[in-house]
Protein backbone atom coordinates (compact mmCIF):
# COMPACT_ATOMS: atom_id res chain seq x y z
CA UNK A 1 0.00 0.00 0.00
CA UNK A 2 1.15 3.50 -0.73
CA UNK A 3 2.37 5.54 2.18
CA UNK A 4 0.01 8.17 3.61
CA UNK A 5 2.46 10.87 2.55
CA UNK A 6 1.33 10.17 -1.02
CA UNK A 7 -1.86 12.07 -0.23
CA UNK A 8 -1.72 15.49 -1.90
CA UNK A 9 -4.82 17.24 -0.57
CA UNK A 10 -4.53 20.22 -2.92
CA UNK A 11 -4.42 17.92 -5.98
CA UNK A 12 -7.35 15.78 -4.76
CA UNK A 13 -9.38 18.93 -4.03
CA UNK A 14 -8.99 19.94 -7.66
CA UNK A 15 -10.24 16.51 -8.75
CA UNK A 16 -13.23 16.92 -6.41
CA UNK A 17 -14.06 20.43 -7.68
CA UNK A 18 -13.77 21.72 -4.13
CA UNK A 19 -11.80 24.87 -3.36
CA UNK A 20 -9.97 24.62 -0.04
CA UNK A 21 -8.28 27.37 1.94
CA UNK A 22 -4.60 27.01 2.82
CA UNK A 23 -5.63 26.27 6.42
CA UNK A 24 -8.11 23.57 5.37
CA UNK A 25 -5.53 22.00 3.06
CA UNK A 26 -2.92 21.81 5.82
CA UNK A 27 -5.41 20.56 8.40
CA UNK A 28 -6.85 17.84 6.17
CA UNK A 29 -3.35 16.80 5.15
CA UNK A 30 -2.50 16.03 8.78
CA UNK A 31 -5.87 14.57 9.81
CA UNK A 32 -6.33 12.35 6.77
CA UNK A 33 -2.75 11.09 7.01
CA UNK A 34 -3.71 9.78 10.46
CA UNK A 35 -6.86 8.13 9.10
CA UNK A 36 -4.90 6.52 6.24
CA UNK A 37 -2.20 5.38 8.64
CA UNK A 38 -4.89 3.63 10.72
CA UNK A 39 -6.33 2.11 7.54
CA UNK A 40 -2.90 0.74 6.61
CA UNK A 41 -3.73 -2.05 9.10
CA UNK A 42 -5.66 -3.65 6.22
CA UNK A 43 -2.28 -4.55 4.73
CA UNK A 44 -1.90 -7.15 7.49
CA UNK A 45 -4.51 -9.34 5.80
CA UNK A 46 -3.81 -11.80 3.01
CA UNK A 47 -6.45 -10.84 0.45
CA UNK A 48 -5.10 -12.57 -2.64
CA UNK A 49 -7.96 -15.02 -3.09
CA UNK A 50 -10.72 -12.80 -1.72
CA UNK A 51 -13.43 -11.46 -4.02
CA UNK A 52 -14.26 -7.79 -3.42
CA UNK A 53 -17.81 -6.95 -2.30
CA UNK A 54 -19.30 -3.80 -3.79
CA UNK A 55 -22.62 -4.48 -2.11
CA UNK A 56 -23.96 -6.17 0.99
CA UNK A 57 -26.58 -8.18 -0.84
CA UNK A 58 -25.88 -8.03 -4.55
CA UNK A 59 -28.92 -7.72 -6.78
CA UNK A 60 -28.52 -7.62 -10.53
CA UNK A 61 -30.49 -6.55 -13.57
CA UNK A 62 -33.47 -5.08 -11.74
CA UNK A 63 -35.39 -3.62 -14.67
CA UNK A 64 -38.84 -2.20 -15.13
CA UNK A 65 -40.96 -2.08 -18.26
CA UNK A 66 -39.67 0.65 -20.57
CA UNK A 67 -42.85 2.71 -20.45
CA UNK A 68 -43.43 6.40 -19.68
CA UNK A 69 -44.45 7.12 -16.10
CA UNK A 70 -45.55 10.29 -14.37
CA UNK A 71 -42.64 12.41 -13.13
CA UNK A 72 -41.91 15.95 -12.01
CA UNK A 73 -43.49 18.76 -13.99
CA UNK A 74 -41.04 21.36 -15.39
CA UNK A 75 -42.23 23.80 -12.71
CA UNK A 76 -41.53 21.28 -9.93
CA UNK A 77 -38.14 20.37 -11.36
CA UNK A 78 -37.13 24.04 -11.36
CA UNK A 79 -38.60 24.91 -7.97
CA UNK A 80 -35.36 24.40 -5.98
CA UNK A 81 -32.98 25.75 -8.62
CA UNK A 82 -30.85 28.75 -7.61
CA UNK A 83 -31.19 30.37 -11.07
CA UNK A 84 -33.73 29.78 -13.81
CA UNK A 85 -34.94 31.59 -16.90
CA UNK A 86 -37.63 30.78 -19.47
CA UNK A 87 -38.32 27.40 -17.85
CA UNK A 88 -34.66 26.38 -17.93
CA UNK A 89 -31.82 25.92 -15.44
CA UNK A 90 -29.24 28.69 -15.78
CA UNK A 91 -25.69 27.36 -15.83
CA UNK A 92 -22.40 29.21 -15.89
CA UNK A 93 -20.80 29.68 -19.29
CA UNK A 94 -19.34 26.33 -20.42
CA UNK A 95 -17.54 27.43 -23.61
CA UNK A 96 -15.17 30.40 -23.37
Amino acid at each position, binding site marked *: MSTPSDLDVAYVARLARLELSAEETALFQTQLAQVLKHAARLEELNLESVTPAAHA*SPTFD*VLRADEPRPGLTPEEALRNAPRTAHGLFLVSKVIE
Partner: protein
Amino acid sequence: MTPRDLPGLTIVELQQLLRAREVSPRELLQALHDRIEAVEPTIDAYLSRDLDAALAEAETADVSLPLGGIPLAIKDMISVAGQPCTCASRILRDYRALLDATAISRLKAAGAIPFGKTNMDEFAMGSSTENSSVKQTRNPWDPTRIPGGSSGGSAAAVAAGAAVASLGTDTGGSVRQPAALCGVVGLKPSYGRVSRYGAVAFASSLDQIGPITKTVTDAALLLQVMAGVDPNDSTSLDAAVPDYTAALQGDLKGVRLGLPREYLGEGIDPEVRAAIEAAVAQFISLGAEMIDVSLPHTSYAIDSYYIIAPAEASANLARFDGVRYGHRAENPLNLLDHYNRTRAEAFGPEVKRRIILGTYVLSSGYHDAYYLRAQKVRTLIRQDFERAFEKVDALISPTTPEPAFKLGERSADPLRMYLADVFTSAANLAGICGISIPCGMASGNLPIGLQILGQSLGEARILQVAHAFEQSTDWHKRRPL
Protein backbone atom coordinates in the same frame (compact mmCIF):
# COMPACT_ATOMS: atom_id res chain seq x y z
CA MET B 1 -53.11 11.23 32.46
CA THR B 2 -52.89 14.89 31.53
CA PRO B 3 -52.27 16.21 28.00
CA ARG B 4 -48.80 17.06 29.22
CA ASP B 5 -47.96 13.36 29.57
CA LEU B 6 -49.11 12.28 26.12
CA PRO B 7 -45.87 12.81 24.14
CA GLY B 8 -43.98 10.55 26.56
CA LEU B 9 -46.24 7.59 25.78
CA THR B 10 -45.48 4.80 23.34
CA ILE B 11 -47.24 4.30 20.01
CA VAL B 12 -49.10 1.32 21.48
CA GLU B 13 -50.33 3.33 24.48
CA LEU B 14 -51.39 6.25 22.30
CA GLN B 15 -53.22 3.97 19.86
CA GLN B 16 -55.39 2.73 22.74
CA LEU B 17 -56.25 6.28 23.83
CA LEU B 18 -56.91 7.42 20.26
CA ARG B 19 -59.10 4.43 19.41
CA ALA B 20 -61.07 4.76 22.66
CA ARG B 21 -61.63 8.43 21.67
CA GLU B 22 -60.13 9.53 24.96
CA VAL B 23 -57.70 11.67 23.02
CA SER B 24 -58.03 13.09 19.51
CA PRO B 25 -55.12 13.22 17.04
CA ARG B 26 -55.41 17.01 17.23
CA GLU B 27 -55.06 17.03 21.03
CA LEU B 28 -52.08 14.70 20.78
CA LEU B 29 -50.36 16.98 18.26
CA GLN B 30 -51.03 20.05 20.36
CA ALA B 31 -49.62 18.32 23.45
CA LEU B 32 -46.57 17.26 21.47
CA HIS B 33 -46.08 20.80 20.18
CA ASP B 34 -46.24 22.12 23.76
CA ARG B 35 -43.72 19.54 24.94
CA ILE B 36 -41.34 20.40 22.11
CA GLU B 37 -41.61 24.09 22.99
CA ALA B 38 -40.78 23.24 26.60
CA VAL B 39 -37.70 21.06 25.98
CA GLU B 40 -36.20 22.54 22.81
CA PRO B 41 -34.27 25.19 24.72
CA THR B 42 -32.48 22.29 26.44
CA ILE B 43 -31.98 19.79 23.61
CA ASP B 44 -32.36 21.64 20.26
CA ALA B 45 -33.44 18.48 18.44
CA TYR B 46 -35.61 19.97 15.68
CA LEU B 47 -34.68 21.88 12.53
CA SER B 48 -38.22 22.62 11.31
CA ARG B 49 -41.84 21.97 12.20
CA ASP B 50 -45.14 22.82 10.53
CA LEU B 51 -47.86 22.57 13.16
CA ASP B 52 -50.65 23.87 10.90
CA ALA B 53 -49.94 21.30 8.19
CA ALA B 54 -49.84 18.51 10.77
CA LEU B 55 -53.06 19.71 12.44
CA ALA B 56 -54.77 19.69 9.04
CA GLU B 57 -53.73 16.06 8.59
CA ALA B 58 -54.87 15.26 12.12
CA GLU B 59 -58.39 16.53 11.31
CA THR B 60 -58.90 13.68 8.85
CA ALA B 61 -56.77 11.02 10.58
CA ASP B 62 -58.32 7.55 10.67
CA VAL B 63 -57.34 6.12 14.05
CA SER B 64 -58.34 2.61 13.00
CA LEU B 65 -55.32 2.47 10.68
CA PRO B 66 -52.14 0.76 11.97
CA LEU B 67 -50.53 4.12 12.86
CA GLY B 68 -53.64 6.32 12.65
CA GLY B 69 -53.02 9.78 14.13
CA ILE B 70 -49.50 9.00 15.38
CA PRO B 71 -47.06 11.91 14.81
CA LEU B 72 -43.49 10.98 13.83
CA ALA B 73 -40.31 13.08 13.83
CA ILE B 74 -38.22 12.61 10.70
CA LYS B 75 -34.46 13.00 10.26
CA ASP B 76 -33.87 15.93 7.91
CA MET B 77 -32.28 13.57 5.37
CA ILE B 78 -35.59 11.89 4.44
CA SER B 79 -37.98 13.60 2.00
CA VAL B 80 -41.44 14.63 3.18
CA ALA B 81 -43.25 16.39 0.32
CA GLY B 82 -43.43 20.15 0.78
CA GLN B 83 -41.19 20.19 3.85
CA PRO B 84 -37.55 21.26 4.08
CA CYS B 85 -34.95 18.52 3.59
CA THR B 86 -31.68 20.25 4.40
CA CYS B 87 -29.46 17.38 5.64
CA ALA B 88 -28.35 20.06 8.16
CA SER B 89 -26.20 21.49 5.36
CA ARG B 90 -25.90 25.06 4.13
CA ILE B 91 -25.91 23.70 0.59
CA LEU B 92 -29.58 22.60 1.00
CA ARG B 93 -30.64 25.38 3.37
CA ASP B 94 -33.59 26.49 1.21
CA TYR B 95 -34.42 23.11 -0.34
CA ARG B 96 -37.93 21.72 -0.05
CA ALA B 97 -38.70 18.09 -0.90
CA LEU B 98 -40.83 17.56 -4.00
CA LEU B 99 -42.07 14.11 -3.02
CA ASP B 100 -42.41 11.67 -0.16
CA ALA B 101 -39.74 9.05 0.41
CA THR B 102 -41.26 5.57 0.02
CA ALA B 103 -40.89 5.00 3.78
CA ILE B 104 -42.83 8.24 4.37
CA SER B 105 -45.60 7.50 1.85
CA ARG B 106 -46.08 4.08 3.47
CA LEU B 107 -46.20 5.57 6.97
CA LYS B 108 -48.70 8.20 5.79
CA ALA B 109 -50.85 5.52 4.16
CA ALA B 110 -50.85 3.76 7.56
CA GLY B 111 -52.18 6.94 9.16
CA ALA B 112 -48.99 8.40 10.63
CA ILE B 113 -48.43 12.17 10.55
CA PRO B 114 -44.84 13.32 9.88
CA PHE B 115 -44.35 16.25 12.24
CA GLY B 116 -41.00 17.94 12.35
CA LYS B 117 -37.58 17.39 10.80
CA THR B 118 -34.74 16.62 13.18
CA ASN B 119 -31.16 17.76 13.47
CA MET B 120 -28.25 15.58 12.35
CA ASP B 121 -24.61 15.64 11.40
CA GLU B 122 -24.36 17.31 7.99
CA PHE B 123 -25.22 14.65 5.36
CA ALA B 124 -25.13 12.09 8.21
CA MET B 125 -21.36 12.38 8.47
CA GLY B 126 -20.58 12.19 12.15
CA SER B 127 -21.23 10.42 15.43
CA SER B 128 -22.20 13.33 17.67
CA THR B 129 -24.49 15.71 15.69
CA GLU B 130 -21.75 18.31 16.22
CA ASN B 131 -21.29 18.45 12.43
CA SER B 132 -24.71 20.04 11.90
CA SER B 133 -24.30 23.39 10.14
CA VAL B 134 -27.35 24.69 12.02
CA LYS B 135 -27.04 23.99 15.73
CA GLN B 136 -25.87 21.62 18.44
CA THR B 137 -28.33 19.03 19.71
CA ARG B 138 -27.67 18.04 23.33
CA ASN B 139 -28.23 14.78 25.19
CA PRO B 140 -31.40 15.05 27.31
CA TRP B 141 -29.75 12.96 30.06
CA ASP B 142 -26.90 15.47 30.35
CA PRO B 143 -27.01 18.57 28.14
CA THR B 144 -23.23 18.98 28.40
CA ARG B 145 -22.89 15.76 26.38
CA ILE B 146 -23.47 14.75 22.78
CA PRO B 147 -26.66 12.87 21.84
CA GLY B 148 -24.71 10.64 19.45
CA GLY B 149 -25.12 10.82 15.73
CA SER B 150 -25.69 11.16 13.05
CA SER B 151 -29.42 10.83 13.87
CA GLY B 152 -28.89 12.74 17.13
CA GLY B 153 -31.97 14.96 16.84
CA SER B 154 -34.24 11.96 16.25
CA ALA B 155 -32.86 10.08 19.28
CA ALA B 156 -32.79 13.07 21.64
CA ALA B 157 -36.38 14.00 20.74
CA VAL B 158 -37.71 10.51 21.51
CA ALA B 159 -35.73 10.27 24.76
CA ALA B 160 -36.99 13.67 25.92
CA GLY B 161 -40.63 12.88 25.10
CA ALA B 162 -40.45 15.52 22.36
CA ALA B 163 -41.38 12.89 19.77
CA VAL B 164 -43.59 9.82 20.02
CA ALA B 165 -41.14 8.02 17.72
CA SER B 166 -38.84 9.04 14.90
CA LEU B 167 -36.96 7.94 11.82
CA GLY B 168 -33.21 8.03 11.37
CA THR B 169 -30.79 6.68 8.80
CA ASP B 170 -27.97 4.26 9.62
CA THR B 171 -24.89 4.07 7.37
CA GLY B 172 -22.32 3.02 9.99
CA GLY B 173 -24.37 3.13 13.19
CA SER B 174 -26.27 6.41 12.92
CA VAL B 175 -29.54 4.97 14.27
CA ARG B 176 -28.16 2.51 16.84
CA GLN B 177 -25.41 4.70 18.33
CA PRO B 178 -27.55 7.79 19.18
CA ALA B 179 -30.35 5.48 20.38
CA ALA B 180 -27.85 3.83 22.75
CA LEU B 181 -26.47 7.13 24.05
CA CYS B 182 -29.97 8.58 24.58
CA GLY B 183 -31.44 5.44 26.20
CA VAL B 184 -34.00 4.54 23.52
CA VAL B 185 -34.52 1.79 20.93
CA GLY B 186 -32.90 2.09 17.48
CA LEU B 187 -33.34 -0.47 14.69
CA LYS B 188 -31.19 -0.74 11.57
CA PRO B 189 -32.99 -3.00 9.14
CA SER B 190 -31.08 -5.35 6.83
CA TYR B 191 -29.79 -3.70 3.67
CA GLY B 192 -32.70 -3.68 1.20
CA ARG B 193 -35.42 -4.35 3.79
CA VAL B 194 -36.64 -0.71 3.67
CA SER B 195 -36.59 1.34 0.47
CA ARG B 196 -34.00 4.11 0.33
CA TYR B 197 -36.01 6.04 -2.26
CA GLY B 198 -36.35 9.64 -1.11
CA ALA B 199 -33.58 9.43 1.48
CA VAL B 200 -30.67 11.65 0.46
CA ALA B 201 -27.80 9.28 -0.43
CA PHE B 202 -24.64 9.26 1.69
CA ALA B 203 -23.11 5.82 1.01
CA SER B 204 -25.56 3.94 -1.17
CA SER B 205 -24.35 0.40 -0.42
CA LEU B 206 -24.58 1.00 3.35
CA ASP B 207 -27.52 3.39 4.00
CA GLN B 208 -30.76 2.17 5.59
CA ILE B 209 -33.72 4.04 7.11
CA GLY B 210 -34.64 2.82 10.59
CA PRO B 211 -37.01 3.65 13.46
CA ILE B 212 -36.03 5.17 16.82
CA THR B 213 -38.65 4.41 19.46
CA LYS B 214 -39.34 4.04 23.19
CA THR B 215 -39.99 0.31 22.98
CA VAL B 216 -39.17 -2.70 20.84
CA THR B 217 -42.87 -3.16 20.00
CA ASP B 218 -43.03 0.37 18.60
CA ALA B 219 -39.97 -0.35 16.44
CA ALA B 220 -41.68 -3.50 15.13
CA LEU B 221 -44.82 -1.49 14.29
CA LEU B 222 -42.89 1.08 12.25
CA LEU B 223 -40.76 -1.55 10.48
CA GLN B 224 -43.92 -3.48 9.60
CA VAL B 225 -45.25 -0.51 7.66
CA MET B 226 -41.99 0.55 6.00
CA ALA B 227 -40.58 -2.86 4.98
CA GLY B 228 -40.91 -4.42 1.56
CA VAL B 229 -39.80 -4.19 -2.04
CA ASP B 230 -40.15 -0.86 -3.86
CA PRO B 231 -39.93 -0.47 -7.63
CA ASN B 232 -38.27 2.91 -7.06
CA ASP B 233 -35.29 1.32 -5.24
CA SER B 234 -33.64 -1.45 -7.25
CA THR B 235 -31.69 -2.55 -4.16
CA SER B 236 -34.82 -3.15 -2.08
CA LEU B 237 -35.27 -6.88 -1.46
CA ASP B 238 -38.20 -8.73 -2.96
CA ALA B 239 -38.80 -10.88 0.11
CA ALA B 240 -41.97 -11.52 2.10
CA VAL B 241 -42.49 -9.25 5.12
CA PRO B 242 -43.21 -11.31 8.24
CA ASP B 243 -45.59 -10.23 11.00
CA TYR B 244 -43.04 -8.52 13.23
CA THR B 245 -45.35 -7.88 16.18
CA ALA B 246 -46.51 -11.51 16.20
CA ALA B 247 -42.81 -12.49 16.29
CA LEU B 248 -42.37 -10.70 19.62
CA GLN B 249 -44.17 -13.51 21.42
CA GLY B 250 -42.46 -16.53 22.85
CA ASP B 251 -39.67 -17.03 25.34
CA LEU B 252 -35.97 -17.47 24.71
CA LYS B 253 -35.71 -21.15 25.64
CA GLY B 254 -33.34 -22.79 23.20
CA VAL B 255 -32.44 -19.52 21.48
CA ARG B 256 -28.69 -19.46 20.83
CA LEU B 257 -27.01 -16.11 21.44
CA GLY B 258 -23.43 -15.48 20.40
CA LEU B 259 -21.07 -13.31 22.37
CA PRO B 260 -18.30 -12.25 19.97
CA ARG B 261 -15.14 -12.04 22.03
CA GLU B 262 -13.75 -9.25 19.82
CA TYR B 263 -16.52 -6.91 21.01
CA LEU B 264 -15.53 -7.10 24.66
CA GLY B 265 -11.81 -6.57 24.30
CA GLU B 266 -9.72 -3.64 25.42
CA GLY B 267 -11.01 -0.10 25.11
CA ILE B 268 -14.42 -0.87 26.61
CA ASP B 269 -15.59 1.35 29.44
CA PRO B 270 -15.80 -0.80 32.62
CA GLU B 271 -19.39 0.24 33.29
CA VAL B 272 -20.39 -0.70 29.73
CA ARG B 273 -18.67 -4.06 30.16
CA ALA B 274 -20.48 -4.66 33.46
CA ALA B 275 -23.85 -3.80 31.86
CA ILE B 276 -23.23 -6.26 29.01
CA GLU B 277 -22.18 -8.96 31.48
CA ALA B 278 -25.39 -8.34 33.44
CA ALA B 279 -27.35 -8.58 30.19
CA VAL B 280 -25.71 -11.93 29.46
CA ALA B 281 -26.79 -13.20 32.89
CA GLN B 282 -30.30 -11.92 32.18
CA PHE B 283 -30.45 -13.76 28.86
CA ILE B 284 -29.32 -16.98 30.55
CA SER B 285 -32.04 -16.58 33.17
CA LEU B 286 -34.54 -16.18 30.32
CA GLY B 287 -33.50 -19.56 28.95
CA ALA B 288 -31.16 -18.49 26.16
CA GLU B 289 -28.02 -20.46 25.46
CA MET B 290 -24.88 -18.31 25.37
CA ILE B 291 -22.20 -19.36 22.91
CA ASP B 292 -18.76 -17.81 22.54
CA VAL B 293 -18.08 -16.92 18.93
CA SER B 294 -15.31 -15.17 17.07
CA LEU B 295 -15.62 -12.54 14.37
CA PRO B 296 -11.90 -12.34 13.63
CA HIS B 297 -12.02 -9.39 11.23
CA THR B 298 -14.00 -7.12 13.56
CA SER B 299 -11.17 -4.70 14.20
CA TYR B 300 -10.72 -4.12 10.46
CA ALA B 301 -14.35 -3.13 9.90
CA ILE B 302 -13.85 0.47 10.91
CA ASP B 303 -10.93 0.90 8.48
CA SER B 304 -12.85 -0.72 5.64
CA TYR B 305 -15.87 1.42 6.49
CA TYR B 306 -13.91 4.70 6.49
CA ILE B 307 -12.66 3.94 2.98
CA ILE B 308 -15.89 2.64 1.43
CA ALA B 309 -18.29 5.19 2.96
CA PRO B 310 -16.28 8.29 1.96
CA ALA B 311 -15.67 6.81 -1.50
CA GLU B 312 -19.40 6.42 -2.10
CA ALA B 313 -20.08 9.80 -0.49
CA SER B 314 -17.63 11.59 -2.76
CA ALA B 315 -19.52 10.24 -5.76
CA ASN B 316 -22.99 10.92 -4.31
CA LEU B 317 -22.14 14.49 -3.31
CA ALA B 318 -20.92 15.30 -6.82
CA ARG B 319 -24.57 16.10 -7.57
CA PHE B 320 -24.30 19.29 -5.53
CA ASP B 321 -23.14 21.52 -8.34
CA GLY B 322 -25.18 24.67 -7.73
CA VAL B 323 -27.33 24.19 -10.83
CA ARG B 324 -30.45 22.14 -10.13
CA TYR B 325 -30.84 22.84 -6.41
CA GLY B 326 -29.00 24.24 -3.46
CA HIS B 327 -26.49 26.97 -2.88
CA ARG B 328 -24.74 28.64 -5.83
CA ALA B 329 -21.70 30.91 -5.62
CA GLU B 330 -22.22 34.50 -6.80
CA ASN B 331 -20.57 35.83 -9.97
CA PRO B 332 -18.46 32.82 -10.96
CA LEU B 333 -15.56 33.58 -13.30
CA ASN B 334 -16.17 30.39 -15.26
CA LEU B 335 -17.71 26.94 -14.85
CA LEU B 336 -14.81 25.53 -12.82
CA ASP B 337 -14.91 28.51 -10.47
CA HIS B 338 -18.71 28.02 -10.20
CA TYR B 339 -18.26 24.41 -8.99
CA ASN B 340 -15.22 25.06 -6.80
CA ARG B 341 -16.69 27.98 -4.89
CA THR B 342 -20.28 26.71 -4.69
CA ARG B 343 -19.03 23.59 -2.92
CA ALA B 344 -16.37 25.41 -0.87
CA GLU B 345 -18.88 27.94 0.47
CA ALA B 346 -21.66 25.55 1.41
CA PHE B 347 -20.14 22.23 2.60
CA GLY B 348 -18.97 22.00 6.21
CA PRO B 349 -15.52 20.77 7.31
CA GLU B 350 -16.40 17.10 7.89
CA VAL B 351 -18.15 16.81 4.54
CA LYS B 352 -15.13 18.37 2.82
CA ARG B 353 -12.81 16.02 4.68
CA ARG B 354 -14.77 12.98 3.52
CA ILE B 355 -15.04 14.20 -0.07
CA ILE B 356 -11.24 14.53 -0.11
CA LEU B 357 -10.71 11.13 1.48
CA GLY B 358 -13.25 9.45 -0.82
CA THR B 359 -11.89 11.10 -3.95
CA TYR B 360 -8.35 10.07 -2.97
CA VAL B 361 -9.13 6.38 -2.37
CA LEU B 362 -10.90 6.20 -5.73
CA SER B 363 -8.27 8.14 -7.66
CA SER B 364 -6.00 6.64 -10.28
CA GLY B 365 -3.07 4.86 -8.65
CA TYR B 366 -4.73 4.48 -5.24
CA HIS B 367 -8.01 2.72 -6.07
CA ASP B 368 -6.56 -0.79 -5.73
CA ALA B 369 -4.51 0.00 -2.65
CA TYR B 370 -7.44 1.44 -0.72
CA TYR B 371 -10.90 0.99 -2.22
CA LEU B 372 -10.45 -2.47 -3.70
CA ARG B 373 -8.66 -3.66 -0.57
CA ALA B 374 -11.47 -2.33 1.62
CA GLN B 375 -14.03 -4.14 -0.54
CA LYS B 376 -12.14 -7.40 -0.08
CA VAL B 377 -12.10 -6.89 3.67
CA ARG B 378 -15.83 -6.28 3.42
CA THR B 379 -16.15 -9.81 2.02
CA LEU B 380 -14.19 -11.22 4.98
CA ILE B 381 -16.42 -9.35 7.44
CA ARG B 382 -19.53 -10.73 5.76
CA GLN B 383 -18.08 -14.24 5.89
CA ASP B 384 -17.33 -13.82 9.62
CA PHE B 385 -21.01 -13.16 10.25
CA GLU B 386 -22.15 -15.98 7.96
CA ARG B 387 -20.02 -18.46 9.92
CA ALA B 388 -21.25 -17.10 13.26
CA PHE B 389 -24.91 -17.37 12.21
CA GLU B 390 -24.40 -21.06 11.44
CA LYS B 391 -23.97 -21.51 15.20
CA VAL B 392 -26.15 -18.82 16.75
CA ASP B 393 -29.52 -17.12 16.17
CA ALA B 394 -28.30 -13.64 17.12
CA LEU B 395 -25.19 -11.88 18.38
CA ILE B 396 -25.02 -9.53 21.33
CA SER B 397 -22.48 -6.80 22.05
CA PRO B 398 -22.24 -3.27 23.39
CA THR B 399 -23.58 -0.72 20.89
CA THR B 400 -20.79 1.72 21.78
CA PRO B 401 -17.53 1.30 23.73
CA GLU B 402 -18.53 4.02 26.21
CA PRO B 403 -21.45 6.26 27.20
CA ALA B 404 -22.05 9.73 25.68
CA PHE B 405 -18.95 11.91 25.67
CA LYS B 406 -18.75 15.65 26.35
CA LEU B 407 -19.61 18.21 23.69
CA GLY B 408 -16.49 19.33 21.87
CA GLU B 409 -14.34 16.55 23.32
CA ARG B 410 -13.57 14.92 19.97
CA SER B 411 -14.51 17.47 17.35
CA ALA B 412 -10.87 18.33 16.64
CA ASP B 413 -9.83 14.69 16.25
CA PRO B 414 -11.62 13.00 13.32
CA LEU B 415 -9.91 9.63 13.78
CA ARG B 416 -11.01 9.41 17.40
CA MET B 417 -14.55 10.41 16.38
CA TYR B 418 -14.57 7.71 13.67
CA LEU B 419 -13.74 5.06 16.28
CA ALA B 420 -17.12 5.75 17.95
CA ASP B 421 -18.58 3.54 15.17
CA VAL B 422 -16.29 0.59 15.94
CA PHE B 423 -19.10 -1.81 17.00
CA THR B 424 -21.78 -0.68 14.59
CA SER B 425 -20.18 -0.30 11.15
CA ALA B 426 -19.57 -4.03 10.54
CA ALA B 427 -23.33 -4.66 10.32
CA ASN B 428 -23.65 -2.09 7.52
CA LEU B 429 -20.73 -3.61 5.61
CA ALA B 430 -22.32 -7.06 5.90
CA GLY B 431 -25.86 -5.83 5.22
CA ILE B 432 -27.24 -7.56 8.31
CA CYS B 433 -29.79 -6.11 10.76
CA GLY B 434 -29.17 -4.76 14.25
CA ILE B 435 -31.02 -3.16 17.12
CA SER B 436 -29.85 -1.17 20.13
CA ILE B 437 -31.88 -1.29 23.33
CA PRO B 438 -31.26 0.25 26.76
CA CYS B 439 -29.46 -2.16 29.10
CA GLY B 440 -28.05 -0.08 31.94
CA MET B 441 -26.96 3.28 33.29
CA ALA B 442 -23.41 4.47 33.77
CA SER B 443 -22.41 6.94 36.46
CA GLY B 444 -23.67 10.43 35.75
CA ASN B 445 -27.02 8.91 34.75
CA LEU B 446 -25.87 8.05 31.22
CA PRO B 447 -27.62 5.28 29.28
CA ILE B 448 -25.81 2.20 27.99
CA GLY B 449 -26.97 0.38 24.84
CA LEU B 450 -27.02 -3.34 24.09
CA GLN B 451 -26.66 -4.24 20.42
CA ILE B 452 -28.34 -7.35 19.05
CA LEU B 453 -27.31 -8.36 15.52
CA GLY B 454 -29.18 -10.79 13.28
CA GLN B 455 -28.66 -12.19 9.83
CA SER B 456 -29.97 -10.49 6.72
CA LEU B 457 -33.78 -10.36 6.89
CA GLY B 458 -33.61 -11.70 10.45
CA GLU B 459 -35.44 -8.72 11.98
CA ALA B 460 -38.16 -10.92 13.51
CA ARG B 461 -35.54 -12.80 15.53
CA ILE B 462 -33.66 -9.78 16.89
CA LEU B 463 -36.93 -8.04 17.73
CA GLN B 464 -38.02 -11.13 19.68
CA VAL B 465 -34.72 -11.30 21.60
CA ALA B 466 -34.78 -7.54 22.27
CA HIS B 467 -38.40 -7.64 23.40
CA ALA B 468 -37.79 -10.53 25.82
CA PHE B 469 -34.91 -8.63 27.41
CA GLU B 470 -36.88 -5.38 27.54
CA GLN B 471 -39.91 -7.00 29.16
CA SER B 472 -37.76 -8.57 31.87
CA THR B 473 -35.97 -5.31 32.77
CA ASP B 474 -37.06 -1.73 33.38
CA TRP B 475 -34.27 0.20 31.65
CA HIS B 476 -36.63 1.30 28.87
CA LYS B 477 -38.94 2.94 31.40
CA ARG B 478 -36.36 5.46 32.58
CA ARG B 479 -36.71 8.95 31.21
CA PRO B 480 -34.56 12.09 31.50
CA LEU B 481 -35.92 15.59 32.13
